[in-house]
Each structure stands twice: as structure tokens, then as C-alpha cells.
């Protein structure tokens, strides 16, 4: 094949407090399908945003050459004019407009501001045919499935005369059949001379469509491999994705030995949940897990594995549509249909998204901590403000929440301290089982260590902890056992002794659907 169509050199991108990309270089040849893989947070999406002008020229360091010429994109439109089109994971279609209107949104066939529907429909039909869709162009986007919507996005890209198509996890939300069609289309477009970059977690997908693969890790490009070459195996790619050294970043922990005989504190059996809108899709598919008192059990999985969905649907059915399964507490079946029921049974869920689901940012530390268990500091429905302050003061000290006082608004605290407030809130509720969803996301190393210490202490106090995380080292450092999930299914269970990043990553990238 021909020379490079794209050359990104030593890209560095810093966000306040975080270095998202520390040194990434990427070379894509003309007419190939180039895969990018890496763990959550490795910098894949950031890199693509730099390339497509979402992060404008000047906000990053490094150089981008497209078709041999330097690029200084100030926004997405600028990159699209050069034929670089990105399709985000979250589809950017307007559900109540037609396919044709969506395809030409912002790029309408119009004269003097008046749309020419004849041209629009003719051209749209052409484009839809090119991506293998026979739907009428006046169908509303809301009326077709996610798989087809993805194809409409590609049709939209084609309408902009795309030369380099970037797809961010295009199959994450699709079922087998739709995924297959999409991958075929990418190969078809390749024969028409369109170069593609595809971000994917699924190694079997990469093997099927990609010519070369670049591995990112911790904001660096590790290596670029030729997929067709013999030495490029799944092992090799997995090693590249996880191969970083474990530092001493975890509290010393005596692994918990499960006592035989006693019933697990929490047991989930054959739990199945459907997507809230796309009811055909099982987001969680007959998952069974259990956790004992004093045990920390990890759940590993990549984006879209269904971990948060599992936790939230168990915790008061706060996600999706329940489609089967039971929850047992200490061996007895319990109802967890509403959050108050789950809380009453001693279950707490600490959300991965503390700003949207965990905290009332405009209220004080005190009021956030006591919200889930106000009756504990109240008599006859009246809150004892004095007692409440004492509780909050206690947590400020024991959790080391850095704030001038407990009446500080939570929105003014740093991420790490906000996380400590969320944890305090649920510890105050006095649960037996804590489900922690990404408890260290977006906080600095020092605060992480403090959070780990707290989790360790909770387990030592006899609480059962479910630890959901995308960071394999922290799961390895903290957990007694680790379950792995992929595409809504449980793909494995690994004991602490056998767990390595490689073992976990292999199970996390296993697509069970394809084995059937």
C-alpha cells in the first residue's frame, strides 16, 4: 500500500491537573484500516479529539500532517473540510428528524437558505444505498435500530466526502448481526479508497478488519503492529495494553479466606436486565455473583461490559428493565425493587458518577453525608442539627475530608474530597454490603491511597465489598476475588492468587456472543 496519509507526531495534551496524552505518535497509511486499542483512560478518545479538532490547534503540543500537509484545525468543521470525519460512540443524530435531514444536517442542499428537498432526497437515497440501507430517507431516526443509526452516521460522513473515517467503539452498542454488517461496510469502504481508524476493545474485531494496530497505554503510544504478521497475537496486544509495573500503591492487605458453610452476604442469581429503550438488547445477561462478609470482590470489564448496569439494577432497579434474577442477602431472598428497600436491607451503591448521581453539589458536606440516613440523626421527623454536625465532623476527621468546615458546599471540593463525602454518606447509612463503582475515578494518587485504606478498613470490619473498576492494578491490589464481564455476560472468576492483568484482560476482551 501507499505511504502515510496521516502522521501525528509527539502529541501532548494536558487537562487541568491531568496529562491525558504524554507522548503519542500515530502513522496511518493510505487506504488501510488502522485499529487503536488500549485500556479505558489510555487516551484513545482524546487522541481522536485532537485529530478531529474537538480540541483545537494550540490546545495541544505536537504536529499533525494529513496528506503531507500540516493541520491547524480550530474546530470540527475545519477537519471535516479536509475530509476527516469522526463518529463518536454516542451517536450525534437528532432522533425526530428524518434520515435525510440528519445526513445533511449543517450541510444542507439549499439555495438562499431554502432547502431543496428533491436534491436532498435523491442524494440521501444514494448515500443510504452505499452503506447498505434500503430504508426510506424520510423515516425518522428514532424509528430505526441502533445498528442502522450507526450506518446513517457513516452515510453522513460519506456526504462530507470523507477521506479518513474515525470510528470510536462503533460496535459497543450493537448486536452480532449489526456489528458484522458494520465491519463489512468498513472493509467495503476500504476498497473505495477510504482510510479508517477504528477504536475498539474487541480483539476478534481487530483481527477481522484491521491491517495494523497501535497500542496506547497511559497516554503514550507503545507500539504499532502489523495485524497480518505472524508474531501479532492476542497475547502480544494484551501485553502491550497492560504492561506497566505495579507500584506499591495499596495498603497491606491480608487476603480474606472465605469460610465454608456460611451464606454469602450478597448473592445475585441469573440477573438479566434489558436496555431501557432498546428492549431487544440484554445489557446484563444471566449474571450470578456472590460476596461474603469481610471479602472484597472485584468486577472487571471494559466499557459496555454491563458492570454499572448490573449494580444499578440490583440497587432499587435504578437502571434498565428487569428481566429476571434474584437477590439473596445472607441466604434469604430479598426485594430490592426500590432504593429504600435496598438500603433497608443493608445494601449501599456508591456511584461512578458522583457529580450527577452521588452528590447535591449546591448543598453542604453535612447535608450530603446525612441524606441517605436522615432518621439516624432525627427524632419524630425533625433533624437534630447539632447531632448532624457531630456526625459530619466525625467523618471529616476519619475520612480526612479537606475542607474549611462541614458547611462548605460540596461543589467547591476537589474530586478526591467529593469522593470521600460520597463514601461517608454510604458508610453513615451503615450497610452490610457496599457496591463501589469506580471509587477512584478522576482523583489523584494520594487520595486514591486514602480511599483504598478506607475500603480495606470496611472489609476488616466485616462488610462485604463489591469493587467495580476499570483499573486492573487496583483490582489486583485490593480484591480477594475478581469477576470479569464482557458484553453483559460474566466471562470468568479469578482468585487473587491466579489473577494477573493478562489473565483478566483476556477474559475481559472475550466476546461470549461469538462463541455460540
Amino acid at each position: 500500500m501507499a505511504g502515510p496519509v496521516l502522521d501525528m507526531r509527539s502529541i501532548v495534551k494536558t487537562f487541568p491537573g491531568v496529562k491525558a496524552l504524554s507522548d503519542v505518535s500515530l502513522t496511518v497509511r493510505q487506504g488501510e484500516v488502522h485499529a487503536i486499542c488500549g485500556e479505558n483512560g489510555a487516551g484513545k478518545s482524546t487522541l481522536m479529539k485532537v485529530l478531529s479538532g474537538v480540541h483545537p490547534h494550540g490546545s495541544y503540543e505536537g504536529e499533525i500532517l494529513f496528506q503531507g500537509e500540516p493541520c491547524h484545525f480550530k474546530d470540527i468543521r475545519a477537519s471535516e473540510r479536509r475530509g476527516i470525519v469522526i463518529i463518536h460512540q454516542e451517536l450525534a443524530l437528532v432522533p425526530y428528524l428524518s434520515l435525510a435531514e440528519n445526513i445533511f444536517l449543517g450541510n444542507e442542499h439549499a439555495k438562499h437558505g431554502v432547502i431543496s428537498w428533491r436534491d436532498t432526497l435523491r442524494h440521501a437515497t444514494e448515500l443510504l444505498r452505499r452503506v447498505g440501507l434500503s430504508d426510506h430517507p424520510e423515516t425518522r431516526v428514532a424509528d430505526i435500530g441502533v445498528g442502522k443509526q450507526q450506518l446513517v452516521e457513516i452515510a453522513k460522513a460519506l456526504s462530507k466526502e470523507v477521506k479518513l473515517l474515525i470510528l470510536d467503539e462503533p460496535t459497543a452498542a450493537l448486536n452480532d448481526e449489526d456489528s458484522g454488517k458494520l465491519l463489512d461496510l468498513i472493509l467495503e469502504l476500504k476498497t473505495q479508497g477510504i482510510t479508517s481508524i477504528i477504536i475498539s476493545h474487541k480483539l476478534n474485531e481487530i483481527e477481522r478488519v484491521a491491517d495494523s494496530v497501535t497500542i496506547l497505554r497511559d497516554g503514550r503510544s507503545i507500539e504499532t503492529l502489523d495485524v497480518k504478521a505472524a508474531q501479532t497475537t492476542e497475547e502480544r496486544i494484551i501485553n502491550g495494553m497492560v504492561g506497566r509495573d505495579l507500584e506499591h500503591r495499596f495498603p497491606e492487605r491480608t487476603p480474606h479466606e472465605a469460610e465454608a458453610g456460611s451464606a454469602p452476604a450478597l448473592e445475585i442469581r441469573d440477573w438479566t436486565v434489558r436496555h431501557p429503550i432498546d428492549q431487544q438488547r440484554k445489557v446484563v445477561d444471566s449474571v450470578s455473583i456472590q460476596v461474603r462478609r469481610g471479602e472484597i470482590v472485584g468486577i472487571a470489564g471494559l466499557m459496555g461490559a454491563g458492570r454499572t448496569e448490573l449494580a444499578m439494577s440490583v440497587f432499587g432497579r435504578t437502571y434498565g428493565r428487569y428481566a429476571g434474577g434474584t437477590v439473596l442477602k445472607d441466604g434469604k431472598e430479598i426485594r430490592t425493587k426500590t432504593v429504600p428497600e435496598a438500603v433497608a436491607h443493608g445494601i449501599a451503591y456508591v456511584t461512578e458518577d458522583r457529580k450527577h448521581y452521588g452528590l447535591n453539589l449546591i448543598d453542604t458536606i453535612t447535608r450530603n453525608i446525612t441524606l441517605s440516613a436522615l432518621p439516624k440523626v432525627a427524632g419524630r421527623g425533625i433533624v437534630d442539627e447539632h447531632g448532624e454536625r457531630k456526625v459530619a465532623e466525625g467523618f471529616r476527621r476519619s475520612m480526612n475530608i479537606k475542607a474549611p468546615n462541614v458547611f462548605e458546599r460540596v461543589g467547591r471540593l476537589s474530586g478526591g474530597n467529593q469522593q470521600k463525602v460520597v463514601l461517608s454518606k454510604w458508610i453513615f447509612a451503615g450497610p452490610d454490603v457496599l457496591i463501589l463503582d469506580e471509587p477512584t475515578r478522576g482523583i489523584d494518587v494520594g487520595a486514591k491511597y486514602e480511599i483504598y485504606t478506607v475500603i480495606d478498613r470496611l472489609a476488616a470490619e466485616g462488610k462485604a465489598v463489591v469493587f467495580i473498576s476499570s483499573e486492573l492494578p487496583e483490582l489486583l491490589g485490593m480484591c480477594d476475588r475478581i469477576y470479569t464481564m464482557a458484553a453483559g455476560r460474566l466471562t470468568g472468576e479469578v482468585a487473587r492468587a491466579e489473577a494477573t492483568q493478562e489473565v483478566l484482560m483476556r477474559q475481559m476482551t472475550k466476546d461470549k456472543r461469538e462463541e455460540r
Partner: protein
Amino acid sequence: MSANLTAKTPTAAPSGGKDKAGDSLLQLMLDGLRRNMRQYGMLIALGLIVVLFAVWTSGDLLLPRNVSNLVLQNSYILILAIGMMLVIIAGHIDLSVGSLTAFVGAAAAVLMVDHKMAWPLAVVLVLLLGAVAGAMQGYLIAYLGIPSFIVTLAGMLLFRGLTEIFLKGQTVGPFPDGLQTVANGFLPAVGPDTNYHNLTLLLGLALIAFVVYQEVRDRKRQQEFALDVLPAKLFALKLTALIAAVLTVTMLLASYNGAPVVLLILGVLVVGFGYVMRNAIIGRHVYAIGGNLPAAKLSGVKDKKVVFLVFLNMGMMAALAGLVFAARFNAASPKAGINFELEAIAASFIGGASMSGGVGTVLGAIIGGLVLGVLNNGMNLVGVGSDWQQVIKGLVLLAAVGFDVWNKRKVGS
């Protein structure tokens, strides 16, 4: 951000503890004002408006009779504003209260005038009617998930229509004397003749004692937790101002007919709702729902029940306002309560509520209502036409909320 916080702590603590001797009182005042803009801004604005109109009307605004009138004229809006504040804190809106006020007045007229029902029984029935009307809207909003704007917009039309049907398009009155006294009358005169209304004086003194006790206790508690409190000098000034304000109003009322009965009702409502919103679990839950609904749900707050109760309460407050209004004008009219919902909503926003919910206090609603009330009354006295009155009130609302937005952005929170 965390560096910012640690840097702030050491400076914040001592400034609360003791005063720096060199600072002049004015310096301290400006300082305190700057830091508590949100808290005091509207109170100061209210003070300025009062002074402005007192001067402009060469003192007429503060004549005993006019102050008494001010209370009576605004009582129903203030009652509505209390209920509306809760609705807005919960992140909703209620457009139906004006019509509901009229509807309830009509129902009261039908019961008391047409059917000669004993007025205390009729009052209870009518308050229940308001609660049921509020509960029905609350059910549609909380449990069926229809947006409150839509439900109450429909309620606004529906109750207005029902009022006209009830009254057959006519004005019905007069109401029994007992009800009129409650809505329009004054506390009874007791004790020796002192040229002043004794009961009012007593109530005023009790209120002063209560306010001073509250303020001192709050300050002590805050110091206990090493919180930033007002410097002693400024605190003394604040107390003096509060006492002076209460005393002035008390003397003015006492030298006329005494305190209106509705003022007492209002006082009970303010203290009661203020306490519930600040100290009761349900009050907390209202703030939590408005502040971050998903987080409140995931914390086990029964959000639907709370929203339902907030609207039920709003219905009952509208019924109370409707009774007061009808009794004051001694007739139920199909055109009663027009635009009351907008006045109540404006009062809430002037008093510090936020469109997105989660913020506001009952006292704020009262202050907002008084700002509008004094403006109305003052402009009437000066002889500003109702055309310009509306223009000015619109601008005040815009300025108050605009100032809030600007102030928030400046503080960066």
C-alpha cells in the same frame, strides 16, 4: 481547587473569632456585605425601596394606617409565595394558584352565602378542597410524570372556568362577619388604655425576644464549630437593626388598630414552614430533590411522595389565600386572583429561588413578596399608573435575578 481551600482556612478562622481593632465599622460592614451578598442583598434592597418611597411620599408610606394596609393588601400573595417557594425549591412550578384562589373563594361563597353553612366548618371544607385540588395536580406530576408546567397550566384554565360556572359569572357576597374579622380585622384590644394596642406591643416584644434568642444561639453554635461568624461589632449592629425594624413596625401598627389577624397567621406560617424546611426530614428531601434529583433518588429519597406533598400543600395554601382574599373584598368574584401565580412566582425568584431548584428559603419568599408589595403600595401613593407599575416590577424582577446570576458567576460556584 484544593490549594485554594487550604489557603482560605487560616484567614477565615481568625476573622470570625476576634475583630481587628483598626477596622472601622463601615469597613467591617462593607466586608461582611461582600461576603454575604446573597443573604443580605434583597433585604437591603427592600430597605432601600422602603426609604425611597418614604421620602418620595413625604412619609405617607410609613403612616400607621398605610403600614396596616400594606400587610392586609399583600397577605394573600405572601401566603401563596410561601407555598410557591417550596414548589420552586423542589424544581417545579405552579401556574394554577391564581385560578385556584378564585375557585376556592367561589366555593366558600357557595357554601357560606348560598347554603348558609357555619363559617368555621366551611373554612375547613374549603381548605380540604384546596388540598384535594393540589393533590390531584401533584399526583399527575409526581406519579404520572406529566411536567408541572403543563399540569398547572391546564389547572389554571380549568379552575378559572369552574369558578365562572360556580358563580354563574356573578359576584357573590357578603361573607359572614366572623370570617371578615379573620381576613380583614385586627387583634382584639385588651388591658388598660395606653394609646397603643397592648396585645400588639406584647407580640412585638415577644418577637424581638425570639429573634434575639435565635440569632445569639445560632452565633454560638457556629462558633462552636469554628465557623466564620460576623465580627462582634457587626453582629451587634445587625441585632440593633433587626430590633429597630421590628419595633418600628410594632409601634406603627400598635398606634393604629393593632396587628391584623392575618399578620399573626402569616407569622405562624413563616415560622412553621421555615422550621420544617430547615429542620424536618421532609424539608431536607425537598432541597435534595431540587438540587440533584438522580442523586436524591439513589439516596433513597421517596421523590414522588415528596413532590406530591409539596403540591398538596400548595393547594391548601392557595385555598387559604383564596379565603383571605374573598373575605377581604367581602365577595367571591370570577375575576379574583388573576395574575396571583405570577406575583407569587416573582416573589420567590426575587427572594432568592433558582430556576433549577434546590435553593431558596421561606423568609426569602416573604422578603421577595414585600419588595413587590412595597413597590405596589408606594407607586400607588405616588400616583404611578398601573402601566408603569408593571414595567417597573418587571425590571425589578429582571434586576434581582440578574444580580443573583452575576454574583454567582463572580463567586465562581
